[in-house]
């Protein structure tokens, strides 16, 4: 043994001969590319292969110096050391990230999910969520497509329940005119007399009963001002909605909101926006790519809703849930055909998620939205084309799509997404109108998990309550509103007065 040989030799390790390069010890067959050159031997003499680099010999010389007495080499263990590292010696064997295989795809998805889960802020989460742009279906809430509400319900996993949800007696304001009829519908067994519970809730100084006559006069004032007293030019072609119904709706809602803010402190702290933008982007189902360089791959079906409601009321506190999170009130229609048969068209642009204001806004929960139907979807046009059953479909599709986009965007603003499903239901309301006919919708978002992986074991469904469209008035003649419908106004006031139980 040379003087560089260690004092102790492991039983399995072969004895290291002196004056021979260390790297010659048990070379694996065929793997070593270089040939060890002994001192004094030329490269050409070594079997005529590629000349071995001299650095190999230098490395061998250097390696010899490492093995001074007391130093350990690879396969040798020190007997008096405690047990070597308890964990695995090698990193885990995972699939490649860039390969065109299912294992690689699932690893990429897993890494993406971990990245989004680990995002520090909500803005970062939204940025990562909508980072990859691909062609997606543009879902229009106000559409002329036939039976669109059925398709929209299948895209958003929504159950449609006709009529308005039964509300707690305490949350409803006691309105003298129709108070008895409404309270009879309340299903709670502990329903108390409305006057007893709500009187202490209201601020002192205001009368406990909002006067129906006052509200009616407010509504009629707004209507007459816009349609009768104010002198306006002829409406622009196909822009009838911007001429009278639009300004009337704005005026009505702003006056009612300011009038009722004394009764509803949530309204006093709310934020009323004109013509805001609401966007949402989500995946639902799978499809095979048909054309292009990605042909044959299985992709999620992407949707985007870009909506511009006429008015929006946002509040700092969330509305209470209507039914528990896991309730099942109906079935969701399942449509086997591709969404393009609706017809629905694809485009690629920014994947935006927006509720009407940015994430830092304190009013980040939704209360009520007001939608105005465009001139293209007038009742008269449908009646002329013998499509009377599609009139209600228009209202329903608008309510379902817009409210789903709004509530889901609110949930994403709180940090939930399809891998991290919502832990509390998000509730919002909407009123869809064409100026004369009003339809009311209430939406409860119970689940955001709509992708093909997350929807498998998800029994939750989103729920939408909706009414048929009813006229607010019959006709406006000579400064007089004929056939005013109090129920519609009552429902509108109920909507505006909706608030969490604590307030």
């Amino acid at each position: 043994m040379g003087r560089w040989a260690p004092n102790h030799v492991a039983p399995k390790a072969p004895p290291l001969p002196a004056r021979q390069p260390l790297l010659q010890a048990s070379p694996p067959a065929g793997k070593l590319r270089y040939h060890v050159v002994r001192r004094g031997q030329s490269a050409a003499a070594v079997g005529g292969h590629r000349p071995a680099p001299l650095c190999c010999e230098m490395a061998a010389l250097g390696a010899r110096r490492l093995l001074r007495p007391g130093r350990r080499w690879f396969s040798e263990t020190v007997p008096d050391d405690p047990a070597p590292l308890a964990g695995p010696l090698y990193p885990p064997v995972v699939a490649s990230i860039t390969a065109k295989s299912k294992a690689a795809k699932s690893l990429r998805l897993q890494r993406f999910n971990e990245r989004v889960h680990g995002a520090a802020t909500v803005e970062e989460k939204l940025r990562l969520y909508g980072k990859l742009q691909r062609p997606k279906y543009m879902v229009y809430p106000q559409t002329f497509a036939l039976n669109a509400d059925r398709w929209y319900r299948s895209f958003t996993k929504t159950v449609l329940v006709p009529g308005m949800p039964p509300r707690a007696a305490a949350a409803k304001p006691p309105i003298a005119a129709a108070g008895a009829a409404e309270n009879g519908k309340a299903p709670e067994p502990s329903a108390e007399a409305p006057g007893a519970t709500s009187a202490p809730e209201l601020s002192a100084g205001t009368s406990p009963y909002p006067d129906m006559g006052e509200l009616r006069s407010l509504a009629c004032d707004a209507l007459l001002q816009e349609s009768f007293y104010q002198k306006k030019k002829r409406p622009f072609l196909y822009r009838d909605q911007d001429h009278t119904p639009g300004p009337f709706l704005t005026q009505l809602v702003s006056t009612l909101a300011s009038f009722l803010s004394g009764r509803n402190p949530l309204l006093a702290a709310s934020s009323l926006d004109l013509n805001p933008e609401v966007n949402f982007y989500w995946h639902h189902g799978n499809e095979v790519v048909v054309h292009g360089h990605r042909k044959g791959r299985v992709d999620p079906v992407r949707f985007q809703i870009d909506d511009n409601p006429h008015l929006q009321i946002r509040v700092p506190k969330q509305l209470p849930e209507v039914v528990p999170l896991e309730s099942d009130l109906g079935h969701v229609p399942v449509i086997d055909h591709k969404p393009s048969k609706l017809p629905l068209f694809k485009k690629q642009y920014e994947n935006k998620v927006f509720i009407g204001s940015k994430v830092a806004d304190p009013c980040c929960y939704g209360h009520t939205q007001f939608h105005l139907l465009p001139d293209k979807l007038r009742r008269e046009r449908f009646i002329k084309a013998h499509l009377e059953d599609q009139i209600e479909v228009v209202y329903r599709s608008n309510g379902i799509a817009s409210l789903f986009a709004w509530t889901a965007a609110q949930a994403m603003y709180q940090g939930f997404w399809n891998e991290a499903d919502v832990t509390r239901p998000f509730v919002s309301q909407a009123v869809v109108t064409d100026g004369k006919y009003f339809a009311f919708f209430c939406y409860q978002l119970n689940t955001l998990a709509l992708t093909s992986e997350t929807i498998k074991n998800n029994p939750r469904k989103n729920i939408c309550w909706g009414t048929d469209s009813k006229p607010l008035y019959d006709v406006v003649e000579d400064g007089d509103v004929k056939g005013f419908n109090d129920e519609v106004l009552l429902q509108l006031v109920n909507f505006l007065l909706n608030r969490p139980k604590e307030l």
Partner: protein
Amino acid sequence: MAAAGGRRAVYPLFQRGGPQLRIFRPNFFMLAVRPGVPQPEDTVQFRVSMEMTKLDIRNYLERIYNVPVAAVRTRIQYGANNKRNHRNQRVKKPDYKVAYVQLGQGQTFQFPNLFPEKEQDAETRSFDDFRDKYMEKEKQKEEGDPRRGGVPDWFGL
């Protein structure tokens, strides 16, 4: 209103509101086809003349066949020009217009199966079996000895 002497009649130019003196029977055709991709139940697919518009299609179906039409969507299918004949000239397949008609009043349509499987009686079945077995035997005779591993029988000494 044929003129005397066999000359062609001259009609006054029609303007809106005037008397309708002539009736034009459409020279169009509409061919109901089986959709290549599955369509919703209320959608029927037609191949129509290139000059027809959506309004024409709607009126055609409603007035002549009394079919309630809710919506019509059309597209023009380009016929490829890639095939070549024996003179190396390009041969074009003709273009045609496809119309997707959604029926009204909740009606549905399913394209019928024009070539259903016929019920085979015992005679045809036994004849088919006999024929298949005969064809198999002929094929095996042609192939040659399987022990030669596909090598032709003229190969050898």
